[in-house]
């Protein structure tokens, strides 16, 4: 279980994360959503100890996480938004470096490297240096690297950024599979449909503060599961309804450019983010 208690991060006068408190259960697939600059990456960076909080704390299975907490860090693996790898290493070396940092025996490192690179379709490129890989290949390599140590907790910061639609779907399937093996996953993403497809619960954050925390279904239900989009010359306005009859009644009064559809998590996101922007 991961607990964030009053987690706060300030950069000078700017507060990136503001007294964020939430609990993520073991085995949960948890989404952290918010507009650009909401504090998602800062939160993940604190959870991976790259940044230290200005105030508050993070507990993993009841133990405080800090840079000295090797026992807690052993459970963690992170896939950052940037390609945080030595650009001059080849894939085998990247994997070996990761294995060595987590004290895996060399034989195990070799076996896991073979299995993971094969699984990700990277085996033929294993001697290619990172700087010569495409963006999608780098992403896959980062995932292989993160999975090599079989973490209990996987922190994913925009893991599918830059991936094509097919690779993204493959990634979703992979993440579902590892989550099925009781791995706790914390995901930040700009692709709201990704969070809706994968996450059991999501936290919506804006300006560093927690705005909403619930399952995607409950958040949609709260906003209203029926949406009517009205398109005018220069804007699109959506209205939400808790029952279909109200939505249809509104639709019949609206102009011909109105349409009824199911509310999505993206609507909830836009509603929460839009109110604050």
């Amino acid at each position, binding site marked *: 279980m991961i607990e964030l208690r009053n987690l706060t991060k300030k950069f000078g006068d700017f507060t990136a994360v503001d007294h964020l408190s939430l609990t993520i259960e073991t085995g949960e697939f948890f989404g952290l959503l918010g507009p650009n600059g909401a504090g998602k990456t800062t939160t993940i960076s604190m959870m*991976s100890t790259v940044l230290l909080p200005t105030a508050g704390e993070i507990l993993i299975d009841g133990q405080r996480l800090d840079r*000295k907490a090797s026992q807690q860090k052993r459970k963690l693996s992170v896939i*950052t938004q940037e390609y945080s790898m030595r650009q001059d290493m080849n894939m085998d070396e990247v994997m070996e470096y990761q294995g*060595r940092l*987590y*004290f895996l025996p060399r034989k195990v490192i070799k076996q896991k490297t073979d299995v993971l690179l094969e699984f990700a379709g990277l085996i033929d490129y294993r001697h290619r240096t990172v700087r010569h890989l495409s963006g999608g290949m780098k992403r896959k390599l980062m995932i292989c690297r993160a999975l090599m140590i079989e973490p209990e907790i996987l922190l994913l910061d925009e893991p599918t950024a830059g991936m094509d639609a097919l690779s993204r779907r493959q990634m979703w399937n992979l993440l579902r599979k590892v989550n099925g093996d009781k791995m706790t996953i914390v995901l930040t993403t700009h692709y709201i449909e990704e969070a809706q497809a994968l996450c059991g619960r999501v936290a919506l954050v804006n300006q560093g503060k927690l705005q909403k925390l619930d399952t995607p279904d409950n958040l949609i239900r709260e906003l209203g599961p029926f949406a009517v989009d009205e398109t005018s010359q220069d804007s699109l306005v959506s209205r939400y309804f808790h029952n279909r009859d109200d939505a249809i009644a509104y639709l019949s009064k609206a102009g011909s450019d109105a349409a009824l559809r199911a509310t999505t998590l993206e609507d909830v996101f836009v509603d929460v983010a839009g109110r604050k922007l």
Partner: protein
Amino acid sequence: MGIITVLWEKWVEFRRDFFKITVAAMISPLMYLIIFGLGIQTTSHGEPYLNFLIPGIVAMATMTGSFSAIAQNMSVQRLYERALDQIMVSPTPLWQFILGQVIGGSLRGMYAAGVILVLTAPIRTGLVFNTLSFAIMFLNGTVFATIALVLSFLAKSYTDAPRFTSYIIMPMSFLCNTFFSTDQMPAGFRQVISLLPLSQASAMIRTISGGERPGAFGFVVLLAYLIVFGAISVVFIYRKKNL
């Protein structure tokens, strides 16, 4: 264990860039030797100037080799590649990471010094380089590797690394007992310069090369720098809020 991991990483880097590293280690010292040692032939303290110059160049090579191996690399890893994030999140104790960097950096400095010794071997100078000389080279390398670590943790941009070289390494190269004795400097300035690590390393290596034993003061000065900058780099990696 973490130290071995860092040394392995350094070895991978060295193996891949062997030619570039070797050429880079050779060029500046070789130029100095040719210009000041062979081109402008003179004597110093009654001996050929080369006998004065070579120990200074060797000490300087350990400084530049270890400093550049760490300063450039760590700045890029921390600010551009973000590869340091991988270390921070791993269970490898961070003090072991620091120690691995310091040893790895110092070994790179010793390699640079070794290249100079090989290049100057055909010149029959009669200079002595023994185990103690190599111990001083290693110690000098650790000092500059820790200084490089501290500066790379303070760097705001990865382009700061060349600036550090201009601000610190270049003045030390010229002022700290490499090309001329600090004895000739004005009082006050001389005391300050002689307390810098390269001055002490050069003086000790030069003393040994002349067949004498160096005093303990130089070791004390180098160890003091190593302890202070080593401690700062460990504090930074554990406590710096935004790495």
